[in-house]
């Protein structure tokens, strides 16, 4: 029997370290070849780490949230044969960064065969509160009858007896503490306790990015309203007459095409600002980040080269990358490299937002909900489909005047949608 040390492999693209997101095994588990050991996260991609050899897990190094350097030992596995532990020792394996000393994990309790013929180290009964975990409340018939009479649901009564059994005393205490005598269900009960949620994985990445953006960038927010009546009418027409293989259009591809049309006039806005080097990289390609809500949090997949895509293609590509992001299948290059970002909360409503720039970009555009609003046209009050358009700019490299002009140009195109398509 030998020990096989599983080290964090080079996950590519110059990654020096990765964050442990979740362990899939624990000490004492017997693992087979190719079983998933651990999820680690690099940049924005979460990678599953399969074990190359079967055996018994002896030790895990690091906890979820810890950073591990490439080459650091993550798992030690007892394997048939010699293993790789000795051979690997001389090579100074970098210790896991910020790894705590491995927790002493107790050896697994011997499995109790049924029926248990010989004495086993039976665990001491724990005063678990089954009442809160869905099991039937444990109480004698007399206590149950009294609870019925008092109109108290025993599920809510904390039991102090063995195994959480509810005693007459517990019932009295609950009734006295305002547990609502006489009402069938105590509707208002005080709650105590704080849940600690570790900010790890994607959530930590989001937190860092947001912090970085707000700390470095003096945001300049600009909001104007746009009359979308004509665009909406065009959009409805296109959706009604589109071919079967063409995607359904929402507002986003129109906005993307408008950006594509206007951005060449405002090269300072389609840019990434390397503020440490003091260089603005003005991109000729227009790679549009699409802020996407996923089950795990905010991800920004990128539609590459929007300037080379027609409106249908834009719509198709938005749907594709957003779906990939939601299903956690987006490739790394689909999640990076954007030169400007769109963030839309349109469906949720809301008057306006002050979006946070996707650092190191210098601008972000946030269309809001389109609603019917009374507006004055030619001295008459008419109902128009109005949309507020929010935006933020890096005021260090984009002047307020230019930003306002840029938005006014976008507004003009959106209000006269044919202009989007006229060269």
């Amino acid at each position: 029997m030998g020990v096989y040390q599983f080290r964090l492999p080079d996950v590519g693209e110059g990654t020096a370290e990765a964050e442990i997101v979740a362990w899939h095994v624990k000490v004492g588990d017997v693992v087979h070849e190719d079983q998933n050991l651990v999820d680690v996260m690099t940049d924005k991609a979460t990678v599953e780490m399969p074990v190359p050899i079967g055996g018994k897990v002896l030790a895990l190094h690091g906890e979820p949230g810890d950073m591990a350097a490439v080459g650091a030992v993550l798992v030690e596995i007892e394997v048939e044969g010699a293993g790789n532990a000795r051979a690997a020792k001389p090579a100074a394996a970098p210790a896991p960064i910020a790894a705590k000393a491995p927790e002493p994990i107790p050896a697994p309790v011997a499995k109790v065969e049924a029926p248990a013929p010989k004495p086993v180290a039976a665990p001491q009964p724990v005063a678990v509160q089954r009442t809160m975990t869905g099991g039937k409340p444990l109480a004698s018939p007399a206590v149950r009858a009294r609870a019925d009479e008092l109109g108290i649901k025993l599920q809510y009564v904390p039991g102090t007896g063995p195994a959480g059994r509810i005693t007459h005393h517990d019932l009295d205490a609950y009734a006295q503490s305002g547990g609502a005598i006489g009402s069938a269900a105590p509707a208002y009960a005080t709650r105590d306790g704080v849940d600690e949620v570790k900010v790890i994985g994607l959530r930590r990445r989001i937190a860092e990015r947001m912090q970085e953006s707000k700390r470095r960038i003096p945001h300049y927010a600009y909001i104007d309203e746009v009359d979308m009546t004509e665009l909406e009418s065009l959009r409805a027409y296109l959706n009604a007459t589109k071919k079967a293989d063409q995607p359904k259009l929402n507002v986003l591809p129109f906005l993307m095409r408008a950006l594509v049309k206007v951005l060449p006039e405002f090269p300072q806005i389609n840019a990434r600002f390397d503020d440490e080097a003091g260089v603005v990289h003005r991109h000729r390609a227009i790679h549009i980040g699409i802020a996407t809500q996923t089950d795990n949090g905010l991800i920004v997949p990128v539609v590459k080269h929007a300037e080379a895509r027609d409106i249908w293609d834009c719509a198709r590509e938005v749907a594709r990358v957003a779906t990939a992001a939601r299903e956690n299948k987006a490739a790394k290059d689909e999640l990076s490299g954007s030169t400007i970002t769109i963030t839309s909360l349109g469906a949720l409503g809301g008057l306006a937002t002050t979006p946070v720039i996707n650092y190191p970009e210098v601008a972000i555009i946030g269309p809001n909900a389109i609603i019917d609003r009374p507006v004055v046209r030619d001295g008459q009050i008419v109902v128009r489909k109005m949309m507020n358009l929010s935006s933020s700019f890096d005021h260090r490299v984009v002047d307020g005047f230019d930003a306002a002009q840029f938005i006014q140009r976008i507004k003009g195109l959106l209000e006269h949608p044919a202009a989007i398509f006229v060269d």
Partner: protein
Amino acid sequence: MAEHIHTKVLIIGGGPGGYVAAIRCGQLGLDTTLVEGDRLGGTCLIRGCIPSKAIIHVAGQFETMMQAAEKGGRHGLSLSSPPKVDLAETVKWKDGVVDKLNGGVTALLKRAKVRVVAGWATFRDGKTCTVATKEGEVLITGEKVLLATGSLPVELPFLKFGGDVISSSEALSLLKLPKRLVVVGAGYIGLELGIAFHKLGVAVEVVEATDRILPQYDAQLVAPVAKWLEKHGITVHLKTKAEGLTENGKALRVSGGAKAELPGDKFLVTVGRKPRTTGWGLENMSVDMASPFVKVDEQCRTSMKDVFAIGDLVGEPMLEHKAATQGELVAEIIAGKRRHFRPAAIPAVCFTEPEIVSVGALPSGGANEIVAQFPFAANGRALSMEAGGDGGFVRIVAAKDDHRVLGIQAVGAHIAELAGEFSHALEMGALLEDVAGTIHAHPTLGEAYHEAALRALGHAIHI
């Protein structure tokens, strides 16, 4: 114009559900009327539990005497000639027991000031029924109505009751022993009666359509019964279907098994019971059904306001003690108390050879589960009354994390009497330590229960 009785509580059915409810109503001072078309006491008392236990008792005594009459006697007891059975006399004694209990129920109802109307009730609407009594038709309207009409044996369409095809009711009132008895259905009723008749000297065969006897229990619990049947020559034809009698009516046609016909003088059909939902005007009330039962909530309320239902009519398990508990509960709810039917467990007892008791959960094989058993072969009291050799045991199922007792089962001679202790443990929310910490008297069968708890904790003494 028929007499019209207005009553606070109208109870239909004088079985263990209805009469217990009536007595409790009387105790609580409610004006109560009970309608029963047959004798008071219901299936259980008149033609079920009690009479069958009486017959089983006599059969056991006869078996012991037969053993004493064998060559060399038994344990020093011997009879010079074999004993004889006069079944008519046995049934007379059994009827005496039934009469005594029936009289007792009548007296208790009287003392509780319950008005008992003898006759068959038919509902015309949700609150009013007509009853055809000897004295003429009576109209009864109740503010609150309790339906406790019980259940009936299930009849097979191709093997209808009548003649030599009998249900458990007729089996308990036979005046002459058949030579050969064929039992259809290896549930607890069929096996209890089949075993009793076997002990009385009848050649018994059992037909069962499924692949096992007593399907509500696990194989381990049933094994001693299967062993007893085999040892005593009661053939159980598993996976065999009854198909009807032969033309001359002297044999049962079967399929699926080794034989095509099973000859018999009587054919006892015990394939289950069904709620009595017809013949009393249920269709004129608008209560919801949970097919085939009447639907009730945790307070035994039907979908109709102030109409309650209990017992076999409302669902499994169809057991006397469930009906009686629900009867008490409904009486108390009507009297204005808050009650719910939420037992921790409903015990089930099976008077086979040996007996089976089951309370609460059977082993599930789950990870958070301790299962421990203690054999009666290691229990002094069992050995001293020949109850140690049938493979019986007590088994405890408990939660591994907090040691809460989840279920208790036992199989063995005379263990039905332990049912109460088992149920009590579950109702009180006992832990293994509670059972282990209770001194059990020596020498009793209950010591095996104590030892099973000790064994679950890893330190049984006598094994």
